[in-house]
């Protein structure tokens, strides 16, 4: 599974032999690969006007391109804001609530992300083909797809340690611009341009997986909530800045801050985040992406609205029992 950003083909159909060679050597003789472009075919085509574009068939003959449009940026942020607004009014009638849930389109984004990740995973696991994923910048929907695909395919990403490694690798080091994306959340009045809840969308998809496969993830919902919190506001340096360059050169994050992982992995903290039902599952886990299977992540979106005291107690009880045993 490879990832990149869009090729700068531009209106003059630029070529880069080295790029073609790189992608060419990955495939064996006669083998086919898939390029999953997270933009619609139209958007990808239009990108050429501003210097971007797609891999032309003639230069990349062994690669077949699939378009799976995933929303990002302003649209995703608006979706998030509308959902949170709908959730915050418990006095709504059921009709109004469902209508607003629908018009927020958030669940549609979850479905699209999971579907695309499944597609990438299928190409790798079922079609035995290599896959290249990219959108425009390669820092948002690209990472969403590659990270989710790895959770589907690779059981080691589903352990607590493996998941942290996945986050570190596919989100933090890969250069998802956390500082820009998580500058503002759903209640901000300022309508910025760079905020978008891509990472939250990823966590939501992971939660959907944990619901459909209650035994297969070593961690529970509490970890996902903690990650969401820390991405937006944190005492730790892990989610600061936009990329490794900023972290090491500009802010010297490693030297001047504490790591979230160091804190989470302490024995006293760790047990809170473990899933008591976990049992190692070496298989590929294929989530259902039927709309009926995708649910609103109540633990996050209704966290401060409906009292979950009893559910928390029930969860704590299970954990206590497992530890006691």
């Amino acid at each position: 599974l490879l990832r990149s950003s869009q090729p700068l083909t531009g209106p003059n159909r630029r070529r880069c032999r080295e790029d073609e060679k790189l992608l060419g050597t990955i495939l064996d003789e006669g083998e086919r690969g898939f390029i999953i472009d997270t933009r619609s075919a139209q958007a990808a085509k239009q990108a050429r006007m501003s210097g971007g574009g797609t891999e032309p068939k003639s230069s990349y003959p062994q690669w077949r391109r699939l378009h799976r449009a995933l929303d990002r940026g302003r649209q995703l942020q608006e979706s998030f804001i509308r959902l949170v607004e709908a959730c915050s009014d418990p006095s709504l009638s059921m009709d109004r609530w469902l209508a607003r849930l629908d018009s927020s389109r958030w669940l549609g984004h979850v479905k699209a992300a999971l579907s695309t990740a499944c597609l990438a995973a299928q190409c790798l696991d079922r079609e035995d083909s290599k896959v290249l994923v990219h959108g425009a910048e390669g820092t948002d929907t690209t990472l969403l797809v590659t990270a989710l695909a790895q959770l589907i395919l690779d059981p080691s990403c589903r352990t607590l340690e493996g998941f942290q490694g996945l986050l570190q690798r596919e989100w933090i080091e890969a250069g998802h611009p956390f500082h820009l994306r998580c500058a503002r959340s759903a209640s901000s009045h300022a309508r910025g341009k760079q905020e978008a809840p891509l990472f939250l969308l990823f966590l939501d998809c992971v939660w959907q997986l944990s619901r459909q496969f209650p035994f297969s993830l070593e961690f529970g919902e509490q970890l996902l909530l903690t990650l969401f919190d820390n991405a937006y506001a944190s005492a730790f340096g892990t989610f600061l800045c936009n990329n490794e360059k900023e972290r090491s050169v500009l802010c010297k994050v490693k030297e001047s801050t504490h790591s979230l992982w160091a804190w989470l992995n302490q024995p006293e903290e760790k047990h809170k985040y473990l899933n008591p039902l976990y049992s190692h599952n070496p298989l590929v886990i294929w989530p259902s992406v039927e709309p009926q299977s995708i649910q609103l992540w109540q633990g996050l979106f209704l966290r401060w609205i409906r009292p979950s005291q009893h559910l928390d107690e029930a969860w704590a009880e299970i954990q206590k029992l497992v530890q006691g045993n």
Partner: protein
Amino acid sequence: MEFAELIKTPRADNVVLHCPFHLAVEGTLCLTGHHLIFSSRRQDNAEELWLLHSNIDSIEKRFVGSLGTIIIKCKDLRIIQLDIPGMEECLNIASSIEALSTLDSVTLMYPFFYRPMFEVLEDGWSSFLLEQEFELLSSVTNEWRLSCVNKEFSVCPSYPPVVIVPKSIDDEALRKVALFRHGGRFPVLSYYHKKNGMAMLRSSQPLTGTNGRRCKEDEKLINATLRSGRRGFVIDTRPLAVAQQARAKGGGFEQEVHYPQWRRIHKYIERFNILQESFIKLVEACNDQSHNMDRWLSKLEASNWLTHIKELLTAACLAAQCIDRESASVLVHGSEGTDSTLQVTSLAQIILDPRCRTIRGFEALVVREWLQAGHPFQQRCAQSAYSNSKQKWEAPVFLLFLECVWQIHRQFPCSFEFNEQFLIMLFEHAYASQFGTFLGNNENERAKLKLPQKTMSLWSWVNRPEELSRFQNPLYEANSLVIWPSVAPQSLQLWEGVFLRWNRPSKFLEEAEVERINIIKYNKELQAKVNALRRQLAEMEANEEVQEEP
């Protein structure tokens, strides 16, 4: 009438069965008087499917060349497909199934023919008698009495032979009140709240009519439940306009001038026929394979099912609040008093009374507030969401109640002794069962059909330890609280366990549940070991002390 007359082809070979979550399998199909049986001759383990004809809602036939396909849609929402070679065979089987699944007479149904293969330890027909309830009641209060005025079912055909009424009202008065209430359903005690002595009564609408009829005995009856100087609440499950219009047809509502101490609240609950349409739309949305999120959400909304859930929960919370918070007595009724009335009173008891959250307490609740109270199960559960024929009396009123219980269960996972499977089991048996519990529309009919003598009770089977263990909630911790569910729309979720049961594989969720039970069982075993070791240690220490003495 012999069943054999209806079966054109009792057996067909080389039939392929398509069942949810199973691969297509080939085998033999057999039709008996009550069951459709499919058995496959596989090497590893013989798979058998036994389907009660009474569980079949509708069938469709399709032909491709000489291969016929029958699609069977069941009342429990399962859809199975049978591929039958040979057009004539297929047609014969289809018409046999249709005939066997649309029998009119109750006495032809399976419960009359079922012979249990288990030892009957407890006769469920006499497990939950009203006399026993009354005994419990009279240990805390002596304001009530058991009346046998209806023992021949002559006063109210849909009521049980004994009812609990205020002590100060005699049988003569009850007869007069029965003439003043729709269908003779005079106000009776539904629930007594021990904490503050408040009562919840239920009835049907008063027959005020356009002339403003009154019945002094009716007024006296419900006033008898009020403490001096206190007010009561009448919760009418019809909107005000509908209640007013009812007068033109002889019905009506309690007028303020005659019932000055009672304040009337209209808390609208959908009528049963609308509920059936909702049910059909919802199931259709769940089966929609179009993969489109917008379509799913808008179809879900258009079905209005979740709205009904919210309405019912709100009304039940209101009744519970009047009793527990306002310390007022409550009278609940709609028009006939057999549908929304019972939904509200039984759900309110789940909120108020911890006993109703135990397994036996819940069974007693269902028997008291639904079966004995005369909810017309035979009519309501004749057809489910896949029925083709014209609907008239069918409606998932009981299912809506079960779902509301599930919503509360989800919000309070430690407060119920039973689990989700228990509720799903009750839903299934209400529509099709080998037991006679849900047959008939009221106690009158059940007595005439001699159900307690001729059929087995569901409770006899469920309450056996082997069965009961499947339905227990491992997280249950008895508490004596009133539990107030959230009715915010965001808190209410679709009951996947019923509506998406056959659409999405729930194998993992079920396994997770089993694992939870195992964890808790193991914990109990370890705890027992610890206790035993502690006792041993204590004994050893005691012996040592004894030996130390000279």
